[in-house]
């Protein structure tokens, strides 16, 4: 190969890297902007109405706030290189149903007991996966199944309603308000929770000692172990955080549906993984950020909103979502590889 040819190939690879680099830096927010531009474009064409309105934008965030809460916590697991917490759906269902059951002792008892149950599930995961090093996917799937069995055996396949169990009207009202409380008549409580969690978790993940140790654990577990990080505790903590946010999500979902039942929270496991991975966290661990995960959640919200406005059926939405998911993740993996930041 002559020098000239050598030069040519170099140039081409540089320009290609340039594009991928933009993709990599702008990341998921590039996609967010893309979807918003698409929405504005379609609105200008007159295909859809009411996209660029304040209330629609609020709706978008409102619709994904619960998913966001669950995904933000689960992101710590992905960050630590342990894929995902597939026990999230039944954690949500169990904590929700326990809260409804405990409403007979008042609102505070309900919330406290839900969080106790959530913590116990987190601890079980932490022990099995942190200490015994079980494969996280099958373990959380098995635990999901087992918890489902527990709920259905204890409550005998029945649903329970807050207003039939609670000791006072006040408790029911408070419980209903977990989802329904609006600040300034517009901003819902789950949205506030989401925003607080984003700030808190962003700080924890990228600035705190715990976050940095977790990153090393996720990126190179052996190195982390040899440099004196208590790897077992790091992984355990990630699973406990995830269980706690699942509890928060479970309480909100139960408050929304006003019924405690075993099927509450179904589907949140895979939806959360989708958001996390679209948001730029790789399953290999140690890469990505909370802000990225928020972007992933927003993309899912925007996508759902746009498709609904366009009149795409629910089932076709699934199909499109699945395909976009694979494409975005594929591009992300490719960009990382081409930039030499991933050996996979």
């Amino acid at each position, binding site marked *: 190969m002559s020098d000239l040819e050598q030069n040519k190939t170099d140039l081409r690879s540089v320009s290609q890297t340039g594009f991928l680099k933009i993709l990599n830096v702008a990341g998921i927010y590039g996609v967010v902007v893309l979807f918003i531009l698409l929405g504005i474009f379609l609105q200008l064409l007159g295909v859809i109405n009411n996209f660029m309105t304040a209330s629609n934008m609020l709706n978008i965030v409102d619709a994904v706030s619960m998913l966001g809460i669950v995904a933000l916590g689960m992101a710590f697991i992905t960050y630590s290189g342990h*894929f*995902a917490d597939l026990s999230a759906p039944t954690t949500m269902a169990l904590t929700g149903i326990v809260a409804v059951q405990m409403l007979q002792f008042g609102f505070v008892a309900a919330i406290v007991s839900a969080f106790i149950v959530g913590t116990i599930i987190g601890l079980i995961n932490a022990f*099995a996966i942190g*200490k*015994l*090093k*079980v*494969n996280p*996917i*099958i*373990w959380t*799937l*098995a*635990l999901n*199944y*087992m*918890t*489902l*069995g*527990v709920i*259905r*055996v204890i409550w*005998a*396949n029945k649903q329970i309603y807050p207003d039939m169990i609670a000791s006072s009207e006040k408790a029911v009202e408070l419980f209903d308000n977990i989802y329904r409380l609006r600040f300034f008549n517009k901003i819902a409580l789950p949205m506030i929770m989401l925003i607080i969690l984003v700030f808190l978790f962003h700080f924890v993940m990228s600035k705190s000692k715990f976050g940095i140790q977790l990153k090393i654990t996720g990126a190179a577990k052996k190195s982390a172990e040899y440099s004196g990080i208590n790897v077992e505790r790091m992984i355990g903590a990630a699973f406990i955080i995830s269980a706690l946010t699942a509890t928060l999500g479970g309480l909100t979902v139960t408050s929304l549906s006003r019924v405690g039942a075993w099927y509450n929270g179904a589907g949140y496991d*895979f939806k959360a*993984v*989708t958001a996390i*991975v679209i948001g730029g966290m*790789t*399953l*290999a661990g140690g890469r990505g950020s909370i802000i990225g995960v928020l972007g992933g959640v927003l993309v899912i919200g925007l996508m759902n909103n746009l498709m609904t406005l366009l009149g795409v*059926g*629910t*089932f*076709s*939405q*699934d*199909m*499109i*979502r*699945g*395909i976009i*998911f*694979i494409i975005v*993740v*594929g591009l992300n*993996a*490719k960009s990382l*590889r081409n930039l030499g930041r991933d050996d*996979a």
Partner: protein
Amino acid sequence: MRNKINKKQILSLGDRYRIYVLFVLVFVVMTLFAPHFFNAWNLTSIMKTVAMNGTVAIGFTIILIVGQLDLSIGTIITFAAVIGLGLKDAVGYGVSVPLAIIAGGLIGLINGLLVAKVKINSFIVTLGMLTALQGAIYTITGGNTIAVTDDQAFAISDWLQHQIVPMLTPRVIIAIVLVVSFSIFLRRTRKGRNFFMVGGNSKTAWLAGVDSDKYTIVAFVISGVMAAIGGILFAMESAAATLNLGTNSLMYVLSATIIGGTSMAGGKGGVFRSFIAVLTLTTLYNGIVLLGLGNEVQIFISGIILASVILYEAFVEYRHDKVVGQRPELLKELNTIQ
């Protein structure tokens, strides 16, 4: 010293044949306690249930052996059933059934290419495929069960239900033939052994001249084809393709494969053991129903069994890791000096 080795050998033998022991145990307990369990009619119905998930488990086991995961098997089952029965009126079973199986293979091929060539984690690829296929199934069918009602379809359905050998219907025989041939292929041929090598250590396999990518792709194709065969045959027997046909299969097959001793880490496992595990779980479920207990108890118990098997394996590994690199004989020497 000698005694210790024996103990170890017994433990490892127990591990390997664990699933057979478990099966005999479940079978004996159900025979003793569950009413109407041990009779030809009930045993036939167990075998019929095993036929679908047993076939699907072949593909899933091979996927785990090469160290990947396929979450899309459940939807492939339904998809194949929908294609096979949906196109029957237009082209007849002669064309639609092969089409359904080819569709399963194609989905597997896409999965495999994305995993091996684009190098996206199989968890993500098959999760995306699961979502996309779920949407496709509902879009194609409009949410309705597909039923075929002409004489030919009923005749085939009747034939599939008739027992060629006592207790063995055609579907069961097909499943057993597939299990035995894949078992022999994996154990006795070089190509079959290569699957284990790829799963055990894909770099080493590559250095040894095994095209790991190719084996990964083939594994996904086999998984897709097996799921499609299981799904289409089941749908043909019941002459209807319901949209939740494969919903429970993922958990069922995954549990069975893990309980059967195939490792999620790759490089270890066996098709025949998975089949016996499917048989064990089905027998257990059947017995639970006969004992008059509900669906919830079935979910609860299978969750407990799966969790304890996983924990037991992890515990063995954990104890093994703790003593790796330790030299007990040197420690003993040190103690005697002091």
